[in-house]
């Protein structure tokens, strides 16, 4: 187990290095941010001054190695646009994104698993057909369009929920969060729902397929024959056995909810990390983009590790770091 973890950490460092180099070079190749940050009427002298003040006049390898040197000390560079350390900018936006991702994940899991379970138990019923058709809609409607429709229906049409923005925040255990106020929760519902719809459809599909697969197996028949309650058969014998793929997907999807809620955050003007990323790409704010990608890569590495650990807890056949293929 220990050897396995050490190997994983070393792999992660390699991944981070490669990612930083690719992103660094990629953004450098697009163009010079100074030209974007200056107003239209800026003269050549002003452009030169801006390039010098942002340190963009130094050769690229020097810029990259300076970045690496600082990164080892935990400094991922200072934003060209906001003149604030990138890592501070990202972490300042993290709570907003986290609460959105957690709410969306709760919607997806708490609705998706029971719906999928029920649909899987009664295949071909009207309920099953409705849920399956609904999940097709969830999969196939583009995210941004779903978002606009939610706004048009609930904010513009019915006027019962705010159109966008993060509402009042309060403090719970020292963390600034929307969960603390009614206004904050009202603002959270629509974007979280928008973000959840795709994941919800995915959860339904996964659970339903899993249930269909195991429900006819001998051990389930045997459990029923033993006279176990239906509830125990479902919760222990069926659900526990189909959870491995669901947990894998949940882990990956939660990561992508945090890292790539960009579209939802843009449509709902949600001050999270995704919106920061897209704004930074448009401004060629290289320090922020690089730092963001590094943080996200690290997050995925950690999530994957946790998922692997969770496997071994759910399925005793899985051995971490053993000789099994």
């Amino acid at each position, binding site marked *: 187990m220990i050897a396995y973890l050490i190997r994983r950490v070393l792999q992660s460092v390699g991944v981070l290095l490669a990612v930083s180099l690719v992103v660094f070079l990629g953004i450098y190749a*697009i*163009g*010079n*941010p*100074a*030209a*974007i*940050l*200056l*107003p*239209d*009427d*800026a*003269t*050549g*002298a*002003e*452009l030169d*001054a*801006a390039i010098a*003040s*942002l340190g963009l006049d130094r050769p690229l390898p020097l810029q990259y190695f300076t970045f690496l040197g600082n990164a080892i000390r935990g400094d991922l560079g200072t934003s*060209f*646009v*906001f*003149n*604030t350390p990138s890592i501070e*900018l990202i972490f*300042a*936006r993290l709570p907003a994104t986290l609460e959105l991702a957690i709410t969306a994940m709760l919607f997806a899991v708490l609705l998706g698993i029971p719906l999928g379970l029920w649909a899987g138990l009664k295949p071909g019923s009207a309920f099953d057909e409705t849920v399956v058709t609904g999940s097709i809609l969830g999969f196939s409607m583009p995210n941004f369009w779903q978002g*606009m429709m939610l*706004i*048009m229906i609930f*904010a*513009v049409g*019915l*006027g*019962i929920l*705010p*159109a*966008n*923005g*993060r509402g*009042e925040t*309060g403090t719970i255990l020292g963390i600034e969060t929307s969960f603390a106020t*009614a*206004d904050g*929760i*009202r603002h959270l519902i629509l974007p979280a729902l928008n973000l959840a719809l795709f994941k919800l459809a995915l959860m339904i599909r996964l659970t339903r397929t899993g249930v269909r697969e195991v429900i006819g197996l001998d051990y389930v028949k045997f459990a029923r024959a033993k006279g176990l309650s239906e509830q125990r058969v479902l919760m222990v014998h069926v659900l526990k056995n189909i959870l491995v793929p669901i947990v894998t997907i949940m882990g990956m999807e939660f990561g992508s909810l945090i890292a790539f809620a960009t579209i939802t955050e*843009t*449509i*709902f*003007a949600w*001050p*999270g990390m995704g*919106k*920061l990323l897209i*704004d930074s790409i*448009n401004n*060629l704010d290289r320090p922020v983009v690089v730092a963001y990608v590094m943080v996200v890569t690290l997050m995925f590495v950690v999530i994957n590790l946790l998922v692997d650990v969770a496997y071994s807890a759910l399925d005793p056949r899985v051995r971490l770091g053993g000789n099994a293929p």
Partner: protein
Amino acid sequence: MTSVDANRRQRAAALRSATAVLRALFALCLSAACLVGHAQQLVIGRGSEPQSIDPHFTRAGPNQMTAMHVFDRLILTDENVRPIPGLAVSWEAEDELTWLIRLRAGVRFHDGRPFTADDVVYSLERAPRVPRSPASFAQSLSTLADIEVIDDLTLRLRTTQPSPQFIENIGTIYILSRAASEGAQSSDFNDPSVAVGTGPFRFVSWQPGDRLTLVRNDDYWGEISDFETVVMRFITTDAARVASLRSGSVDIIDLVSPADLPRLRSMSDINVFQVGSLRLVYLALNQREEMIRFTTADGRPLGENPLRDARVRRALSLLIDRRGLTDYILQGAGEPATQIVPAGVFGHAQSIPETRVDRDRAHALLAEAGYPDGFGVTVHGSGNRFVLDSEITQAIGQLLARGGIRVNRVEVRPYAAYTPKAAAGEYPIFLFSYGNTSGESSRGLSGLFHSYDAQRDLGTLNRSRYSNPAFDEVIDAALQTFDDTERERLLWRAAEIAFHEDTALIPLYFESAVWAARTGLEVLPRRDIRTLAMSVRIAR
């Protein structure tokens, strides 16, 4: 409804839809925003966001339109970008190198300290020295030699060289309180005790990506706002901004997209306000000798640059239907342009007529220049730099093709990738824009049309490398002339040479700045596209 309270209108909407639970939750809400809601509050949905609260950090537009609420300048500008006295009540050139400035008496900073000449000295010294500034104010102060404080309300400034524009330039510097902000970094300005100005609003807080909150300065020396609090919400997506206005969560939005205009104009509870801005959208015609990315009419390499001939440039201009662009693509949110500044702005030459489509004349000119069958070219444009830039680029391609030019391709790239190549002269015909920030034409004329001269920092926006010694002579003289009448006469002449005689580039239109607000509010649209709470008042 006379209240400016978005929350209350939302509540009225909730009544209709029988959501008793949510209403109960809302009624329980005792947070600060709900209490403020009962006073006069203005919520602005902005499409752009400041980079810092430090007004000296960058002179980019979104930053300035934020700073203007909290900080004053020596000289302010009205909605037509004409200078009006700000913290300076009068200024005069004692000779070509010396300016005497008298300051406004009785002005106090938000923390109660009096405003004095020392704060001006401090601000003029600080502005060019902000570390890591991406768009510094240094250029505006480059000719400042020294400052002499005569008394608390009088200053004498000397310049290194005669510069008629000096006072307008230093007039753009935001005046900070030395006592509140000396030694502060840009990021320290997020603290309201540092971000202390003399402006019409006091700074309260900024949550980046979300909102910025201001409260009224009741001791302001100028006109007092109708609104006790102002909240700016940053909503960068056009459709989301419009949805916010329609749902009542904001009172006014800026940067309304032409696609939403017909709809918003037809709505009874929303009013649209628009004005021609000072942003000129133009088609640049690359006149560098080495630019030979042209083909003949049947697609073979041409081997020379036809755009070096003024007759060819004039012919292309005659093919562009400017009214078509503004009426159909921009839905009326643009005004056809003839030159660098629109009518009513200092330096606008009445003598330049509007160019109307005349294909016969264009063909005659092309034939005269040796291209009776036209030639082939690729048209380039940016995406997402200004309103509908990629659509306009496509339309230009179609208009040229209709006029008999072989349009090989139309290429649109994101601005970040586009502008370096445009500056390097890699595009033959390309769409660009120029946003005038000073209320007169000299800066634009010298930047866009003066022969390229990096040393003297002239013609640095002249990406086409247009060059005419006669033009250079006139604009050089204008930049040295103190007498306004004489200077404007020279600027007229310069515009005539560049636009009428040489067709150095093809002016297309001035983008309109468009705001939409709920009924009950009046917006004074500004030509500099600044969205200011000071421009909004309650209709009476």
